[in-house]
């Protein structure tokens, strides 16, 4: 894992170097998104960026109990996410929890998207919660408790392949380069 992490960091740093060498080519260098994709396309993130129902577990199976998105991403009328998901992990970590547990908005679903499409979604204000600048786009991933939960998910759930601190560094490099996406 450490080796792959180092490789990703290297890719990110090389990509930044290339972007700078090319005189801030802006959106041309999609390699900067590679380390970000390795995090946001991990099951801790993907499982809740779904369309009609959350997924769960590392293999991303449909959530048990026929849980659905409901009208506002918090579940059906009387089977809400908060019926089980508290503000913290509970039951010795078996039941994951963070404040305001819910699905990502429908416009931000990543179900069926490849990393290029996820990247394009993230920088599209029509599909990212009307976030227009790079700083606005990466704010959610820097500070949202639901995102931070991915690094302390409880039980034996896997965590993203780099630390949150390293993830933030990658995000800031990507935003500074104009949010380039893979070709």
């Amino acid at each position: 894992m450490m080796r792959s992490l180092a490789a990703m960091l290297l890719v990110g740093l090389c990509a930044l170097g290339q972007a700078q060498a090319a005189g801030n080519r802006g959106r041309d260098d999609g390699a900067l998104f590679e380390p970000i994709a390795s995090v946001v396309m991990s099951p801790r993130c993907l499982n809740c960026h779904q369309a009609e129902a959350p997924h769960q577990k590392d293999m991303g199976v449909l959530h048990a109990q026929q849980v659905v998105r409901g009208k506002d991403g918090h579940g059906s009328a009387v089977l809400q996410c908060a019926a089980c998901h508290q503000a913290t992990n509970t039951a010795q970590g078996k039941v994951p929890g963070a404040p305001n547990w819910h699905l990502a908005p429908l416009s931000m679903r990543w179900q069926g998207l490849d990393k290029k499409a996820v990247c394009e979604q993230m920088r599209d204000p029509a599909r990212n919660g009307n976030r227009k600048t790079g700083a606005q786009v990466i704010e959610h991933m820097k500070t949202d408790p639901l995102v931070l939960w991915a690094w302390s998910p409880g039980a034996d759930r896997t965590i993203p392949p780099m630390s949150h601190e390293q993830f933030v560094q990658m995000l800031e490099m990507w935003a500074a380069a104009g949010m380039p996406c893979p070709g």
Partner: protein
Amino acid sequence: MISLNINGKLVKVEAEADTPLLWVLRDELGMAGTKYGCGAALCGACTIHVDGQPTRACVMPVSAAVGKKLGTIEAVGATPVGQRVQRAWAEIDVPQCGYCQSGQIMAAVALLRAIPKPSDKDIDQAMSGNLCRCGTYPRIRAAIHKAAGQS
């Protein structure tokens, strides 16, 4: 000392902040109508109402219940919807072993308050977190329709 609003009454309990609410209800307060099933929010036997929403008491820290209105099976018959559900349950003779039924009834009452005339799909989406190992699901569905006046 922790103050809780349970079935409209304020009660004080001695408990650690992270003690599951179900333990407080059953062991500290002797309210054993709410059942322990899996202890991990997988079966629904411990369903109570928290501000009207069905919630699994086995995974809710008691500290998270402070300031909320808690409703349990012991008081559900004091409401019109609860009475209708109880009557329908008895008329159709829903339970077999009965262990899951207090959770089923709490979920059904919350459903009928939110959606007075639920479709089968509404019932599925509300009740699918409440398991019944005797398989009384067809009778649960029928009783919900009956309580809604659409049998």
